[in-house]
């Protein structure tokens, strides 16, 4: 009895193993075939996103390659090292694209990318992910509203600190009635990232490119 069970079990195991091996092999092949394509698609997606706030014509380096990891900082709102992408024109630093998190959105974190030109002027801001209330707080999303473009061309020198607020709080930034929490968070985050950029400008452009995993 027990030997037959054993034999039976080992047959089963054998067949199962065979299937597992074949399956794994199939997957490995597919993986190898698709991996470069996936990587390329991801890169294109990222480029397209950055392209929205930093026109491709303005720089000539491979911005994805020329990325460096920044240590976590409260100003950027992140707890892990985040990449910064650096654009340069003819070898001269032209702009940096920062990944920024606004932690105090109406419903959680708002992730953005902020492109800041070397002279400290915002080139553009885009919200990457957010959970704001659809129909209320989601006008920060470029797909819904052009509001986010109000940052373009703004800089610390243009507006003093007290102006980096929504109008309701006495600042210079428009907002939609009934939803001030969200823009407040975004404005605050952009403001802080500008400050960060100003303080760390040299460091940002001089870090060695380590092309972090996208």
């Amino acid at each position: 009895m027990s030997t037959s069970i054993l034999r039976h079990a080992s047959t089963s195991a054998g067949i199962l193993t065979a299937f597992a091996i074949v399956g794994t092999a199939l997957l490995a092949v597919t993986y190898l075939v698709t991996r470069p394509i996936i990587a390329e698609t991801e890169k294109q997606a990222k480029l397209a996103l950055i392209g929205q706030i930093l026109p491709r014509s303005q720089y000539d380096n491979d911005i994805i390659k020329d990325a460096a990891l920044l240590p976590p900082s409260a100003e950027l709102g992140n707890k892990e090292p985040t990449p910064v992408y650096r654009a340069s024109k003819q070898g001269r630093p032209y702009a940096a694209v920062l990944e920024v998190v606004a932690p105090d959105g109406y419903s959680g974190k708002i992730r953005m990318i902020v492109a800041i030109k070397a002279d400290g002027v915002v080139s553009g801001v885009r919200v990457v992910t957010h959970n704001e209330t659809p129909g209320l707080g989601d006008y920060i999303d470029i797909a819904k509203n052009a509001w986010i473009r109000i940052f373009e061309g703004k800089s610390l020198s243009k507006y003093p600190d007290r102006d980096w607020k929504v109008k309701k709080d006495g600042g210079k930034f428009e907002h939609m009635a009934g939803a001030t929490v969200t823009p407040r968070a975004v404005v605050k985050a952009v403001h802080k990232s500008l400050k960060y950029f100003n303080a760390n400008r040299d460091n940002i452009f001089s870090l060695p490119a380590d092309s972090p995993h996208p």
Partner: protein
Amino acid sequence: MSAPHVLTPDRSVSTIMLMVLGALVPAICAYYYFFGPAILISLALASVTAIAAEAAMLRLRKYPLKFFLFDGSALLTAWLLALSIPPMAPWWLIVAGTAFAIIVAKHLYGGLGNNLFNPAMVGFAVLMISFPAFMTQWPAPLMLSQHPVGFTEALQYYFSGTLSGVKLDAVTMATPLDTLKTQLQLQHAVSDVQQMPIFGAFGGKGSEIIAAMYLLGGLFLWQKRIITWHIPVSFLATLILIAAVFYGIDGSRYASPLFHLFTGGAMLGAFFIATDYVTSPTTPRGKLIFGAGVGLLEYLIRVFGGYPDGIAFSVLIMNAAVPLIDAYTQPRVFGHNTKAE
């Protein structure tokens, strides 16, 4: 000819519903007084929609219209919904909410007496999650408004969406609860916030009087034995208790129990909404649990959650628990668990 051959003369479904409607009247008057005639338009819109939706559903389901249409329950749903959403909202908002309440929350379940969820609160919650922008803009009390809105003007706004001359912003503002919440996020202290003009003696200006009128109406219902004390008392007691605990911990970040009692939908909820027979437990112990649950959730959502007031959601969540509560709080039946010989 089935026994018994006699019936209580004084009470039928429609008289009960009428009494509840009557108990709302003082609050409606106060509403009119403090916030202007817009509420009347809301009530009328909701009533017409509710009756129409009810009639359509009864017809579809081949029920005799005569008895069911005028039982008053649809009207009550309409009024409670109209009283919960901001007046000065577009007409379609009220119509959509009421129709949803009557059709989906009530008639898909089989109509009066069969629904699991409070229809008015379903309507409210649907509107709240769908159109938060409209649902958070309340007209300012007349005495604070730079531009008190009259009847014709209000009517015009309901149907055209514009006010002649002024922007809607000019006549609406965030409610006390909302204001408190946003101001607290900006690290202001409760006592400072409550200095703002929109706050009254212990609640919102004007709205605290309306809340008191709800209390009055509720006491009337209790005195007429239409509702029992269990749900309102356990609801309000729980609310007071939790509010007191947090107030005690940090009075600058948490408002006083009195404030919580007299703002938002607490009073309306305690006496008119949580007490809906159909969607609340029937056993005394069940009612106490239900009320306490609503009170707890109300505070949680109000103070820590995303919505300015939690009455609708807390009632709905506890509605969902009603069958379970009822099943586990069955009172002892005569002759059971006695020490037999």
